């Protein structure tokens, strides 16, 4: 039996697009699901939520699962383990609404039980805002605590000038522009009980002030 060479070649040619589509679709699905898993669900087992704040129990740890390791590499590369530092990140206010830099938020909380702590505002690309006067963070040395041991912070694009949004102990963290906002609460050398059980943090509240 003889084979027609021209028929053979055309059959192969017609299969190439199908093979190409199979590979492209597989790559697209693989990259898409991997990126979704890294950004959202894949590391959920190692995440602890406390109010609007969440922390990873395995950030920086050699025992981290691949999804946690990848997620930390994207949103917090070079993190320390929780024996050294706990990182609590908030992307929503206490009512669950996504944080926006153009809005004003009031953050009230007890000074966390750690050797040293700080609260820093980041844009949604995980980098610092162009904040006037280098007002990037409030920390254990710069925070003014009230008689209850609480700190009070107002975030927003403009410095508060009067009304309920001002007060002797109220600090301002500038968040210029209109984009997503992330707040990071760092606890260096947290007390041992909190290291073991980060969900026992008395979480600062984040409340939107007025309209935005």
């Amino acid at each position, binding site marked *: 039996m003889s084979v027609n060479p021209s028929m053979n070649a055309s059959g192969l040619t017609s299969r190439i697009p199908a093979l190409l589509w199979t590979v492209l679709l597989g790559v697209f699905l693989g*990259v898409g699901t*991997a990126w979704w*898993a890294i950004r959202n669900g894949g590391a959920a087992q190692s995440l602890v939520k406390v109010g609007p704040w969440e922390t990873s129990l395995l950030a920086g*740890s*050699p025992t981290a699962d691949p999804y946690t390791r990848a997620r930390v590499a994207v949103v917090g590369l070079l993190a320390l383990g929780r024996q*050294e530092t706990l990182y609590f990140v908030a992307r929503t206010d206490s009512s669950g609404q996504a944080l926006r830099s153009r809005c004003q938020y009031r953050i009230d909380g007890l000074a966390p039980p750690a050797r040293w702590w700080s609260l*820093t505002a980041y844009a949604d690309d995980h980098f610092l805002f162009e904040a006037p006067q280098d007002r990037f963070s409030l920390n254990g040395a710069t925070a003014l605590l009230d008689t209850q041991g609480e700190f009070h912070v107002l975030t927003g694009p403009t410095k508060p000038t009067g009304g309920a949004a001002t007060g002797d102990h109220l600090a301002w963290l500038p968040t210029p522009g209109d984009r997503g906002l992330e707040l990071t609460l760092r606890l260096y*050398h947290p007390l041992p009980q909190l290291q073991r059980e980060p969900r026992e943090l008395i979480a600062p509240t984040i409340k939107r002030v007025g309209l935005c």
Partner: protein
Amino acid sequence: MLSHRVALRIMGVVAIAIAVHFSVVWAVPRVMMWKLFDSLGQSGDRAAGLQRPVLPPLADATARRVVMPNPDLLYGLCVLDLERGPMIVRADPKLSTYWSIALYSSNSDNFFVLNDREAGPLPVELRINAVPDQSASIVSPSKKVLLLMRILVPDRAQGMDALEAARSSLRCSTS
């Protein structure tokens, strides 16, 4: 009913998607570290035995090398290349406030950290090797390591001289 050919294509798509999915998850931290190693470069001449640490200014909006830079810390960084043997890290911060030296492997794991309380008042000397040897105080899981020194800056408005001196005490060398 699906034809044999369509069923084969669906199985092919699923198999490729699974392989790519796990490859991406595995590769992301390694690529991020590779980019960081690359951006820090080989500052200093390893052949001459000394690797000059990278000492960036206090973080602000222009600091875009690593996500979530802490504006309350002074950083010092060294890329430790253990391909040709151990490296020695020395520091003498002489500070009563928080500082630490952390080591990160090429997959981004923080496999070692030493802080001021653990180190005490004496100068620090760490010998790091990628293979176990009698004199190595730390065995690295990878041949390329990022060293990150953190020094707490309690108030950016205050003097920085003592903190800068502490950071400048960092040395990364082959002997």
